[in-house]
């Protein structure tokens, strides 16, 4: 008989790794901490492999204990793997970046004081993994904070770099503000329903907004008349999540933080924060869109958010010359496409959710790949403007080709993961009939072609400013190749990923336990 391993062992092992790394950091005598990152990469890779032996459906034996706020379905497991892979790639980037980092950290030897730079992401990873499984507002909040607090420290990590410090302060203030919104929103929803568990809230809302009557000794329809209070709570939660995913008009922190933060952190932030925000958003929307009394209004809010985000992100990305800022604005645009799929959740839920998950997976690959190359090139060209990429096709054909691939995917050119994601998003939007969003999306994609292909023009058309060839570390080379292959594989043959996203109907034990 096969031994069943509950999925929570994954989080526990990641947390253990983090704690162990903290100890190692405190007691290690070596000044250079890069070996910590290498060990962490190996362990995390082992955990990714291990994750395929855990089972996805909730374990009936332990039901009623932690399953009430923690549930594992196929999508959750998928996002756990995404979190692990992003953390691995982050650590690869951090290794590539460590000399830059050391320049801005006070210390008598190079590498002193960089240990936490490798520990914190592991904790963030644990937070992301918990969030993928959170079905209770309390756990959602706690894991979101675990992620966000880790990022506060990482963004401001370069203590002697004013831009990094400025970014840290901005991120701290706005992040704390959004946390406040989230708690306040949760309070309102709790005040109405008396529940923090998402399934219980859903049940309570459906009962509360059905036709008033007494059924089975329970009162129905007792919430009618409280629509505005509920909507207020939902809007507060949406505002908080809007900050996390960088949706307009809550995107103001994005460009400065992206530009100021250490580049690996920027990549991790754009992937991790976005994935976390959208995972929670989809879970929360699953609850509120099911209530007919408010579902339409929530959809309307999402359409507005998506439209504003698409327009703002794509237009402001057009004139950018700094690559990190360009990616910052374009990440807002990508949030817009994801919101477009979220706005379609009200129509046919399952395909729209699949579109969000698939888009996120593709976004992760192409963003990490482009940032990884950016770090390598920026180290050699001493700058992260687009002009520093001039003539990359001559300096390093491999990097230029990989970047072209990432850019093609970001712009949404077929046979890449990015295209398939956009295709799914547009398909769900067309199916739901959001024609305004489709129209804005078309203009956005066209703008995207311009600002992304600008980089291809720089790499191939222009002559390099200095023609020294670029050397790539073996581990970076492996990561770049793997990400590039995955982008194409996902674009041509998405079946393995889809199989993971295939949703077995989740029977939540929280339901069973309560009712």
């Amino acid at each position: 008989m096969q031994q069943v391993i509950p999925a929570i062992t994954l989080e526990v092992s990641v947390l253990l790794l983090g704690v162990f790394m903290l100890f190692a950091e405190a007691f290690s005598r070596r000044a250079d901490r890069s070996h910590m990152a290498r060990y962490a990469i190996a362990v995390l890779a082992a955990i990714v492999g291990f994750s395929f032996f855990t089972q996805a459906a909730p374990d009936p034996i332990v039901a009623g204990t932690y399953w009430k706020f923690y549930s594992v379905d196929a999508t959750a497991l998928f996002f756990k793997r995404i979190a692990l892979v992003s953390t691995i790639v982050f650590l690869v980037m951090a290794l590539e970046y460590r000399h830059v980092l050391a320049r801005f950290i006070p210390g008598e030897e190079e590498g002193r004081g960089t240990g936490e730079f490798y520990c914190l992401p592991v904790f963030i990873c644990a937070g992301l993994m918990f969030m993928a499984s959170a079905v209770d507002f309390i756990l959602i909040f706690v894991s979101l904070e675990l992620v966000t607090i880790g990022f506060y420290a990482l963004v401001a990590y370069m203590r002697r770099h004013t831009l990094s410090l400025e970014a840290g302060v901005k991120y701290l203030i706005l992040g704390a503000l959004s946390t406040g919104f989230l708690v306040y929103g949760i309070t309102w929803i709790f005040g109405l329903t008396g529940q923090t568990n998402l399934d219980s809230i859903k049940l309570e809302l459906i009962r509360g907004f059905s036709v008033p009557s007494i059924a089975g000794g329970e009162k129905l329809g007792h919430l009618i008349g409280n629509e505005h209070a509920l909507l207020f709570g939902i809007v507060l939660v949406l505002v908080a999540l809007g900050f996390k995913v960088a949706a307009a008009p809550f995107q103001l922190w994005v460009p400065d933080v992206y530009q100021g933060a250490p580049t690996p952190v920027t990549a991790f932030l754009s992937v991790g924060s976005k994935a976390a925000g959208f995972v929670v958003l989809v879970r929360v929307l699953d609850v509120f869109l099911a209530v007919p009394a408010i579902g339409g209004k929530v959809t309307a809010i999402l359409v507005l958010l998506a439209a504003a985000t698409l327009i703002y992100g794509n237009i402001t990305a057009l004139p950018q010359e700094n690559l990190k800022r360009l990616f910052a604005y374009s990440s807002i645009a990508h949030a817009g496409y994801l919101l477009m799929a979220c706005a379609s959740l009200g129509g046919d839920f399952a395909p729209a959710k699949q579109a969000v998950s698939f888009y996120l997976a593709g976004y992760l690959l192409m963003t990490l790949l482009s940032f990884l190359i950016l770090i390598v090139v920026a180290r050699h060209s001493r700058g992260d403007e687009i002009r520093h990429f001039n003539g990359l096709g001559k300096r390093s054909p491999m990097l230029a080709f990989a970047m072209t691939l990432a850019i093609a995917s970001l712009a949404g050119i077929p046979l890449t993961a990015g295209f398939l994601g956009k295709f799914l998003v547009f398909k769900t939007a067309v199916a739901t009939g959001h024609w305004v969003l489709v129209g804005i999306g078309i203009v956005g994609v066209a703008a995207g072609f311009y600002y992304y292909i600008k980089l291809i023009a720089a790499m191939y058309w222009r002559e390099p400013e200095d023609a020294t060839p670029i050397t790539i570390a073996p581990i970076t080379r492996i990561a770049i190749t793997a990400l590039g292959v995955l982008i194409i594989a996902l674009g041509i043959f998405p079946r393995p990923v889809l199989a993971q996203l295939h949703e077995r109907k989740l029977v939540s034990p929280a339901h069973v336990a309560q009712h």
Partner: protein
Amino acid sequence: MTVLSLIILLPIANALAIMLGVPARRSALLASWVQLALTLFAVLGYDRARGGVQFGSSWNVAPEWGLSLRLGADGLSLIMLLLTALVTVAAIHASPRIEKREGLFYACILLIDAGAAGAFASFDLFFFYAFHELALIPTFLLIGLWGHGQRHAAAWRITIYLAIGSIILLVGLAKLYLAQNVALLPGHARTFDMIVMAKTPALIPAAAQGGIYIWLLIGFGVLISLVPFHSWAPGAYASAPTPAAMLHAGVLKKFGLYGLLRIAVPLLPEGAKEWAHVLLVLLVLNILYIGLVTIAQKRLDTMLGYSSVMHMGYVFLGIAAGNAVGLSGAALLMLGHGLSIAALFAMAGHLRQSSPALVFTDFGGIAKRAPFLGYAFGMAAFASIGLPGFVNFASEVMVFFGAFGSAPRPGTFSFTAIQIAVICGLWGVVISAVYMLRAFRKLFMGESTGPAAVADPAPILRWALIILLVALLIGGIWPKSYLSFIQPSVEALLAK
């Protein structure tokens, strides 16, 4: 592994091999000839008695969405594949010496080739679209890196234009997919399978067809350079390096027309009727307005660019006819135009070596010094005008007859809209005769005033021209050679 997957994989594998350091020009030449041989093998191996889609293969990519890489070929796609292979061979023959980054140049050419072949051989809506887009970035690089004149502006314009056109097309295809009447389909699930879609009568509800057709018409229209979405084409062709212009004007542009034939004709007949008048006005503008613009050109490359825009009008006329004769003519004209414009661009590329600006007044009397070039240019120009003896003549006759006969004459002295369009379109032949013959006279006749360097092309380019011209002549003298492939497929598209 069918012959079709080999035809598509070969250029991709070759492109990758070139990136890894295999000698670029020689391997590309070899690959293109092997591809032509494989295509001929497929054409000869196609069982015409059986008809339908043959060489089928299917690779299940995403069963949840019904996505499969379905390859196959009927007579129509075989002719388009033949066009792709012929023009690719000629384009690689006609490539000038590449000074910088030769490998990247040939890899780009081969990727365009693979994209076109893949699109023509795909019977899955998704991959049909996806393969075409494979050409987008290679085109951008080719024009921007190795182009002439205002190459950067031209590269940007063609890329953005085609990207917008593609995304409009994508929305149209998504609408088409979602509008399917599920009850009529096997398994009661929507499908991307173009064979199943074409076989199912009344798959798209008549009321929904118009709304889908216009998205497809605009989307494909941008790719085909239908007026008023044409302005990317002449500049891009003028600036593009010779093989890129040959492939783009000769092959890639046909993708949009092929798409209309393959998708809009069988699935959206009601939609086509709804927008028939708009299409007729636009195609007459394509023929007459662009024709007059072509006459005004003072340079060979822009003249050829505009003429290729103009000739799309005839193909549209054949599609607007909507009957077997007109549609077969349109398909045959796609072949004829592709071959003739590729030959003309190849010769323009040769002339560019002696005078980069290609202004007519710089040349004169070339025929004396370069008799072969004179003959070849004359033949290609005659073919392009539509003079008897070439495929273009046979196909244009079919287009005009088909379109004129598609609507019964309401009275003795009154005509239907499409008949008026035919009458207007006939003047297009006169217009093309004016600009082509004038170009021929200015370039090849009279006193030899041009740069002394103009000589007959090297044997490798001669062979490219000979291949293209022979293919044109075969169809002109014996149209049935191609039509016996095209006509049954077109009739199958119409039949249901």
